[in-house]
């Protein structure tokens, strides 16, 4: 790539810019809306003529939003943690071991991933009503794990398959136990995969609306996407667009932080150089 010509660079630069702009405009538009006053909300200007922080003040004054934010963060983090830990173990076994029922396990997890979630909402609603899980954190965490696990298993086993197993054998020959070999050789190499999966699972849980609206009824466990839909603005007659925009901006921040935090660990091509020449 060192020999890329100037014209090729320009071509790629333009292409990249188009893609970035295309993806960012809606986000920036929401951000712009969140800084506008109710009067200028619909003036169609990209850059607000009058800047205001009222929308942000407003949403943090309402108990609903803060409470929903806490619910969202807690539920998404716990689901991610459990799904990634279980997924890592399952993916390691799938890519490493030959055990009876392996194909079945892979098939079933694929099936779960393909299952339309909408069709599960009513049965889940009934089950959770009867078991007392309705409108609680575990009531959302459990279904999230169910649907995040196939995702985690799939991405992670793809990563594990890339790690040459000779490394594990080499570690054993060098005097490591099975546990040490996993901890000191395999785990550091699998880390990018684990973090990538964690991000994907977190985003999945964070963004979910369907389960969150069906399986919650009060602020006790309502997550942000649902809380947003209940937004009404300061008074009933006020247009809540500004407040919703501000809330939307606020809830993307944890995701951005989460990605930035883990991105450093996702060093592509970490396994290069392990084998051959």
């Amino acid at each position, binding site marked *: 790539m060192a020999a890329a010509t100037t014209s090729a660079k320009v071509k790629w630069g333009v292409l990249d810019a188009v893609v970035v702009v295309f993806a960012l405009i809606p986000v920036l538009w929401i951000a712009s809306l969140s800084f506008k006053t109710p009067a200028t909300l619909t003036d169609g200007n990209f850059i607000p003529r009058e800047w205001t922080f009222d929308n942000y003040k407003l949403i943090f004054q309402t108990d609903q939003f803060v409470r929903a934010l806490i619910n969202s963060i807690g539920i998404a983090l716990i689901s991610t943690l459990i799904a990634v830990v279980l997924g890592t173990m399952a993916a390691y076994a799938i890519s490493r071991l*030959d055990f009876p029922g392996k194909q079945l396990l892979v098939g079933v997890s694929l099936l779960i991933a393909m299952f339309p979630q909408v069709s599960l909402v009513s049965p889940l609603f009934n089950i959770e009503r009867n078991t007392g899980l309705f409108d609680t954190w575990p009531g959302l965490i459990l279904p999230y794990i169910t649907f995040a696990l196939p995702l985690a298993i799939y991405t992670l086993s793809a990563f594990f398959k890339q790690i*040459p197993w*000779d*490394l594990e*054998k*080499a*570690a*054993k*020959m*060098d*005097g*490591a*136990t099975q546990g*040490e070999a996993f901890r*000191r*050789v395999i785990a*550091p*190499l699998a880390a990018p995969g684990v973090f990538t999966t964690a991000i994907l699972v977190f985003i999945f849980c964070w963004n979910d609306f369907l389960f969150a609206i069906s399986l919650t009824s009060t602020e006790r466990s309502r997550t942000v996407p649902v809380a947003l839909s209940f937004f009404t603005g300061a008074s009933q007659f006020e247009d809540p667009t500004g407040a919703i925009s501000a809330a939307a901006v606020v809830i993307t921040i944890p995701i951005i932080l989460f990605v930035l935090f883990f991105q450093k660990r996702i060093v592509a*091509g*970490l*396994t*290069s*150089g*392990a*084998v*051959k*020449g």
Partner: protein
Amino acid sequence: MADIVLDKVTKKYPDGTTAVHEVDLEIADGEFIILVGPSGCGKSTTLNMIAGLEDISSGELRIAGERVNEKQPKDRDIAMVFQSYALYPNMTVGENMAFPLRLAKMDKALIKQKVDDAARVLELTEYLDRKPANLSGGQRQRVAMGRAIVRSPKAFLMDEPLSNLDAKLRVQMRTQVSRLQKQLNTTTVYVTHDQTEAMTLGDRVVVMRGGYIQQLGDPQTLYDNPKNLFVAGFIGSPSMNFLSATVEESLLRTPLGDLPLGDRLRSSLSGADAPRQLILGIRPEHFEDARLIEEHQRERGFEFTMPVDLVESMGSDKYVYFTVEGEHATAADLEDLAADAGGADLPPQDSLVTRLSAESRVRDGVDARVWMNLDKIHLFDPRDGRNITLHEDKTAGVTTV
């Protein structure tokens, strides 16, 4: 350092394939032994069983006199060099080499000293802080060797350690491996399917095929006295020529002409069950341009005239190719060899390869008169591939299966 004994070691994979059949092998302390054979013959499986990476299905493995079948690899105190090198990509060269020592909870200062020593021997000192990704193939190979030698294990196991290098580097590293082994005098089991490596490196060579040991001996013995067609064809490059031959009275009828049966051949054929249909084997260097043969040698050989196909001059000598008319030698062993292009470079069946002196004046397309050394002829039984010219006195030093 230790001796390694395989006592009727068998490996049966869960899917039913028996990769190694009752292999008996005694590897002396400090010996450099080579396992060679075509792809899929069970070399890696044997090595992995010694390493402890594969379970032994039956039989016993003893290292330094102690049964180790049930021991974990880490408790066997054996180092292994992998074909893929298997360097830890997240560690520097120095950390890679220190890894076995750190696992052994060795003192930091001592680790540093040992790693530095090993790096000096392998000329890796200036690369200690680099990651494996930024090394050349040859350097990575040396790091893999370094990781094996730092902790002075009882034995080294190497599975085709040079096969990922280009031809020139391979020759260099071959000498380095050989020198290192002599210097450390550590028992070494080395797997390869390259017969040149097998011939040049080992104290003794084990030729394997289909999970069985075909022959075990020092390289020269294998070369001079192969026990069967397979070993004869596998060892040597270019490989031995095989011709069909029929015994008639006191003559051996071959596509090259009727050869007289000397005392040596006659006695091999005297047995009651001696076959009449045979395969004659002779190596390329046992031919010579008839004009360059001195008178006293002439009667020990046989001369024939044939049109030359092709002359390849190597400078030091000439490879001259002929086309043999008539029936081809056929045997199951030869087909096996031909199927494994990686191992033996067997010439096409109807071609005869000879190596003549550089002074020879033979030219393409012109008839040449060629002398063949009858003392060096091997006769094989096509039914089981056995070398019937191999006499008991010559088998001294050759362990049979």
